[in-house]
């Protein structure tokens, strides 16, 4: 199967999603949500968004407005494992920036995480590293979530162990 067929198959699936939700309340959100779930890497590609706009008649700028408003939507491919570092005030004081820098070193992407406000997926699509403004778990700072599980009082050492656990890949010390 060549690439164009894959794309058109995905677009057909989107068409099915659109006809399912047509005319229902909150139609656009449901369509976008299911479209994202359809994609292997859990994100809304430009092609997919164009297609939704084309079929629903919703202007592209409106669609962009919606997908950037809700944090549920991803505009970039998501890695197999999701690492979320809290960058709230409490976590920051307890060294969450250093944890982010450590992650960069371990996964070989220091520069991508430099600003302390990151969204990055490793080229092998294994890890997506992102930050949040606050998890609401300040008492347990610093907090890091890995694949939905929240880990508290994280240190550089525990981070390394956690990473090794989710991935068979060798992590640089």
């Amino acid at each position, binding site marked *: 199967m060549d690439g164009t067929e894959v794309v058109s198959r995905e677009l057909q699936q989107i068409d099915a999603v659109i006809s399912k939700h047509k005319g229902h309340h909150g139609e656009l959100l449901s369509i976008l949500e299911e479209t994202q779930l359809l994609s292997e890497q859990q994100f809304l590609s430009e092609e997919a968004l164009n297609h939704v*706009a084309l079929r629903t008649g919703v202007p592209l700028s409106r669609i962009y407005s919606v997908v950037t408003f809700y944090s549920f939507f991803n505009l970039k491919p998501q890695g197999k494992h999701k690492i979320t570092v809290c960058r709230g005030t409490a976590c920051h004081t307890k060294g969450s920036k250093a944890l982010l820098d450590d992650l960069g070193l371990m996964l070989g992407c220091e520069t991508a995480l430099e600003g302390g406000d990151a969204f990055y997926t490793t080229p092998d699509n294994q890890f997506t590293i992102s930050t949040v403004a606050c998890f609401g778990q300040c008492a347990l700072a610093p907090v890091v979530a890995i694949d939905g599980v929240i880990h508290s009082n994280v240190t550089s050492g525990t981070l390394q162990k956690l990473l090794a656990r989710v991935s068979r890949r060798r992590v640089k010390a």
Partner: protein
Amino acid sequence: MVTVRINGSEFQVQKNLTILEACTHAGIRIPTLCFMQDVARNASCGVCLVEVKGARSLVRSCTACVYEGMEIVTNSARIRDARKTNVELLLANHPKDCLTCLRNQNCELQTIAAELGVMESRFVQTKKRVPLDTTSPSLVRDPNKCILCGRCIAVCSNVQTVHAISDSQRGIKTRISTYMEKGLGNVACTNCGQCALVCPTAAIVERDDTDAVFEELMDPEKIVIVQTAPAIRVGIGEAMGMAPGSLVTGQMVAGLRRLGFKRVFDTQFAADLTIMEEGHELIHRLTNKGALPMITSCSPGWIKFAEHFFPDALPHLSTCKSPQQMFGAIAKTYYAAKMEYDPRNIVVVSVMPCTAKKYEARRPEMMGAFEHWKEKRAWSDQDAFYDVDYVLTTRELARMFKESGIQFASLPVEEFDNPLGESTGAAVIFGASGGVMEAALRTAYEVVTGKTLADLNFTSVRGMEGIKEAEVDMNGKKLKVAVAHSLGNARRLLEQIQAGQSPYAFIEIMTCPGGCLGGGGQPIPTTWDVRKKRAESIYAEDMGKPIRKSHENPQVAALYRELLKNPLGELSHHLLHTSYEKRGVFVWNTNGSRTKNLTHAK
């Protein structure tokens, strides 16, 4: 009616009014910033706060409505403090570079800060600086100067139905965005500039070409000539501090000479020429079963709108270039030959009420004069030049006048140069919605019937009504025509055509509310009151012209005699007519390649 107390005095006001409206009726001023009459009320700035008895907090008067017995206070220490604080919060993230800002002294944020006596900016910056959007040939966006009033989105979506911009993200990251941050130049934007016209700050401005034009004017090798659109003579006075709608044709000509233009010509000459071509095109379509209704093609924002949203309707568009482009093509062929100038040395500068004209001048097909000479003179593509080299908006011309120390109000009245400065009353009214229609009818009627019109004034197509209709009797054949201004109204007429239900033979469409006199390059503010004043001056100028029908313009007649021969002839075809591109709501890939054309279902 309801009774309210404002600052201790009782007033009878209509119900359903906002507090702001009620106070305005009562002659009490409340400062506002984000609110704009007829455009947007997003209640985002918190400048219009008032006290309402019984309310827990201060109330935003631009959206809250009056009720029976309401007690309103519009001035107190608490109100003044809160208003100031709200402006300070805006200033915290605002690059306060007023001195070097395009909107310096014409900025609502600056004005309100002064008016409210904001003397400090206590809060620290919390937003990150983001890059400018310089992708558009017509406009530049600086999101850092945006106060998120939402006026631009309202105009683009509700008035123009283009939806090129929307808000994106949320909270502190909220900003005005194009789809995927591609920039205005890479999405379906018509370049109409209505967003710039309503923006209170310098967050959306025209692309400034004044430096480039000053440079050309200094170059001794170049023959720099200028053409001015009809709407400039009713706009530039205003931009130079005169009353709205001031009619200043003669001073404008004098001012342009002082700036150093070698010849001061008039786009109105080309407007008369447009009527000759377009009028004959209409007659041709009527007698040869061409695509009807025929739609005017003078307004480049409208052209791009049709290319994006109604690509299947393009055969309805007249193939005539706009007057600006006809002028450029004639200046660099007919006029160049007459004067024995090398067309490569002629620089054509347009002064337009329009930001979309900047885009139009750079459309790749707008090189009619070069194509004309290329073979004759064995020129290579390296000699290539556009028909129109620079487009300045009214606002830019005002900046050039000021920078050059020109005392505009005291300039003498001077005449345009010949031959491309001769024009009729029919050409003047191109500047107002309905004007092209009226001008075309004056000529088409006389050409078709061979009779002289008893009354030249087709008043039914004048005025600010969104869609206007008229019926003309031409030798017993009744012609229905329509006029629309602003793209939302254009959309309605286009949908009618698509549904096969258009009763019209001829339609005039102008992109901007009110026509060119309300163009995106006109002085700020452009309100409906101001538009009406400019329109009055346009029709006054028409009445004062000795010739008021395009086919009686002696210099246009000479052009046909000496070069073009007949309207719609071979040379006209090459120099004065054009073709359009089916764009669809196109989308650019991040790598710059173009994806397939998309057309919206709705």
